[in-house]
């Protein structure tokens, strides 16, 4: 059993580097835009289709009805989609900044964001 896990010095170094990079990426993300999530941006094939407030409960038809997004209790959830894999429907609801729901077959991206207005407010405050 002892021989099962024989990590060398360089292995440990590699592990530490990976953990540091992951930690740094997490930290940068929190620092740059972790707070103030208040809306979702919906993109279809790379172009923005609309920005919707998370504060308002609503149902949004995306891409002429291929996907149906529901916003409720500050969370966005993909409720229906006509894609074959249904992976976007099975994804958890999103609410934190830069979390996203992606439907690859329909090229739909729903991304949580902080709107420009709130950033402006934060600065003036």
């Amino acid at each position, binding site marked *: 059993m002892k*021989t*099962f*896990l*024989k*990590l*060398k*010095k*360089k*292995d440990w170094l*590699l*592990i530490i580097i*990976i*953990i540091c*990079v*992951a*930690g740094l*990426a*997490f930290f940068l*993300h929190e620092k740059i835009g972790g707070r103030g999530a208040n809306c979702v941006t919906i*993109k279809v*094939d*790379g172009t923005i289709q609309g920005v919707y407030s998370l504060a308002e409960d609503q149902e949004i038809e995306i891409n002429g009805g291929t996907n149906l997004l529901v916003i409720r209790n500050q969370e966005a959830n993909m409720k229906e989609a006509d894609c*074959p*894999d249904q*992976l*976007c429907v*099975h*994804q*958890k609801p999103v609410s934190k900044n*830069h*979390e*996203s729901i*992606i*439907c*690859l*077959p329909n*090229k739909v*991206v729903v*991304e949580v964001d902080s709107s420009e207005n709130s950033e402006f407010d934060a600065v003036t405050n």
Partner: protein
Amino acid sequence: MKSRVAYFGVFTALALIFGYIETLIPISFGIPGVKLGLANLIIVIALYRMKLSEAFLLSVVRVLLSGFLFGNYFSILYSLAGGLLSLTVMAVMKRQEGFSIAGVSIAGGVFHNVGQLIIAALVVETFSVTYYIPVLLIAGLLTGLLIGILAGGMLKRLAELSF
């Protein structure tokens, strides 16, 4: 020559089985199509038991076959990017002194996920997927470590069997 082809066939079949098992595990990293990379176990063993060109061929054959069997166009794209980047990095690492199989496999696991992330960023034309970098790096680290331990054990058995 004949036995090499037979072993290649066995390895391909094993890789397909692992790829299939993986589709049954309901772990989601938030990005559709991104997979854990359990089939990498066979690739790691191939890297240590076969010629490098054969390991690459195995990697491509595996991705195409499992893509046609249980996946779609996107899963092929993801797996190919993840698999080839991972194998390239592992081949380079193996040549360096001082890394054990676990270390090589960890690098493979991490770059498997990095490759998939790059494809995700390109396909959906958004950088929002970078949100998942930390979780994908750590997941790659753990998967790679697990695969490294398993591969180490299996390679030892194989050596005892003198195949």
